[in-house]
């Protein structure tokens, strides 16, 4: 991996990985699969975050991080991302009042073929909200955070760090550990809650704010989920935890999707320390650094056919109420908010807002910045009713409250 900036749009290309092909298929079926990090502030927009300065900062960040302007090119095994799309636009929209549903602009799909595949949204006063959004096929949460950090560096007038790696997740795994594969995922896990009273399209979600550090957060949430009422009284709950593989190569600076799943089967009687130890062991043994067993063959399946296969599988999952995991659980932790200081604009909360994609049975995302954690619990509307989501969310929040 070179340490030089991959700043030339002509040179930045990235193979579409199996995971990203899944995201593309999902996007074709249900547009709007985005990673979205929200910055809330309780103050009026300062001069530092005025649209003109933000646009200049976004342009500067994109110049050194071409992964923010990717579009799809090629076909079959030559399907790839190229940095020839539009620079992420800044969209200034009407105010988003607290307690109100998110604006429609935050459910707007980002087109992988024409772009932009990344954008920044600023809602207006009195309490502006800044949202960085990216189609999940081009970035993971850490990749989007890297881009956001670069924008804030530009706002502060600091030198940017740029991108020095254009590996896909599978290329990264191959380079780190070779062609190790994980077992095929089977749809043999029921959702956590009986979907008796649920209906509706899209997703429902709830947000919880926790103060104080939460040691073993992922382990505690896993135990809380395993302990919750289950439909089939299965003995274990399968948790899928995306692991940011950049931890294994700290010199890598990348906006790519470089997260792979770690799977944990958690027994309801298991304590959080035991689960925490298993997570640490899984990280030490690099268990997330595995290729999907279908990695190679999937490259040669046309995207249209791949979409059909994906649609058939998700339809079967929805009918049978059986999924490859019980829940997806993510946690991004930052020591402090200094990376997002935009000179004078203080932010009061940071969280990942879910996109309206109902493919997964349950998602819990946590973002810790300093001593504050925001928790978001989301589930498809056809699986979880409002009351059930309230109960489940409250149970999770209570389990991790300091």
């Amino acid at each position, binding site marked *: 991996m070179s340490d030089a900036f991959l700043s030339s749009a002509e040179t930045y290309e990235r193979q579409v990985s199996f995971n990203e092909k899944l995201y593309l298929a999902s996007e074709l079926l249900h547009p709007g699969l985005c990673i979205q990090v929200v910055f809330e502030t309780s103050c009026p927009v300062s001069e530092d975050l005025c649209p003109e300065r933000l646009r200049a900062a976004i342009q500067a960040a994109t110049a050194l991080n071409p992964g923010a302007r990717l579009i799809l090119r090629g076909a079959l095994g030559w399907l790839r991302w190229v940095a020839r799309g539009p620079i992420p636009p800044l969209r200034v929209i009407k105010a988003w009042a607290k307690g109100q549903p998110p604006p429609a602009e935050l459910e707007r799909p980002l087109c992988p073929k024409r772009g932009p595949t990344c954008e920044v949204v600023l809602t207006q006063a009195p309490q502006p909200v800044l949202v960085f959004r990216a189609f999940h096929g081009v970035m993971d949460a850490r990749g989007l955070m890297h881009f956001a950090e670069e924008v804030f560096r530009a706002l502060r007038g600091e030198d940017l760090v740029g991108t020095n790696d254009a590996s896909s997740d599978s290329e990264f795994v191959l380079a780190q550990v070779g062609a190790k594969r994980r077992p095929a995922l089977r749809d043999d896990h029921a959702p956590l809650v009986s979907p008796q009273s649920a209906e509706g399209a899209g997703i429902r979600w709830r947000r919880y704010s926790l103060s104080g*550090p*939460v*040691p*073993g957060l*992922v382990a505690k949430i896993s135990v809380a989920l395993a302990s919750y009422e289950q439909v089939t009284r299965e003995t274990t709950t399968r948790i899928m935890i995306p692991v940011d593989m950049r*931890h294994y190569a700290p010199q890598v600076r990348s906006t790519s999707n470089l997260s792979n799943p770690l799977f944990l089967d958690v027994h309801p009687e298991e304590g959080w*320390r035991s689960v*925490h*130890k298993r*997570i*640490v*062991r899984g*990280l*030490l*043994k690099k268990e997330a650094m595995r290729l999907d067993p279908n990695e190679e063959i999937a490259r040669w399946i046309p995207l249209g056919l791949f979409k059909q296969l994906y649609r058939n599988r998700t339809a079967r999952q929805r009918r049978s109420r059986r999924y490859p995991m019980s829940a997806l659980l993510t946690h991004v*932790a930052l*020591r402090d908010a200094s990376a997002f200081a935009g000179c004078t604009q203080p932010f009061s909360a940071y969280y990942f807002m879910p996109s309206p994609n109902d493919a997964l049975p349950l998602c819990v995302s946590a973002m810790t910045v300093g001593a504050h954690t925001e928790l978001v619990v989301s589930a498809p509307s056809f699986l979880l009713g409002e009351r059930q989501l309230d109960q489940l969310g409250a149970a999770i929040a209570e389990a991790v409250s300091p």
Partner: protein
Amino acid sequence: MNEAQLLGEICALLLKEFPQLQGVELSADTELISSGLLDSFALVNLIALLEEAYRVELDVEEIELEALESPGAIAALCLEALA
């Protein structure tokens, strides 16, 4: 090397390698995991650092979290591995 010396080295290593511990007055009993000071990946890094620093192999299958909970516990773990 006795345990007190090892404890001093462990504390120095922790302060050097983990910026999140800057400003923390480390003692033998400082809770590193329960307090949230070190998260999962930090523990992964810590094990690798200890193995490199003391030329020992720490069995990840057998290690209990309590053995990494405090500088004192870590020192005891390393002493046992060195024995």
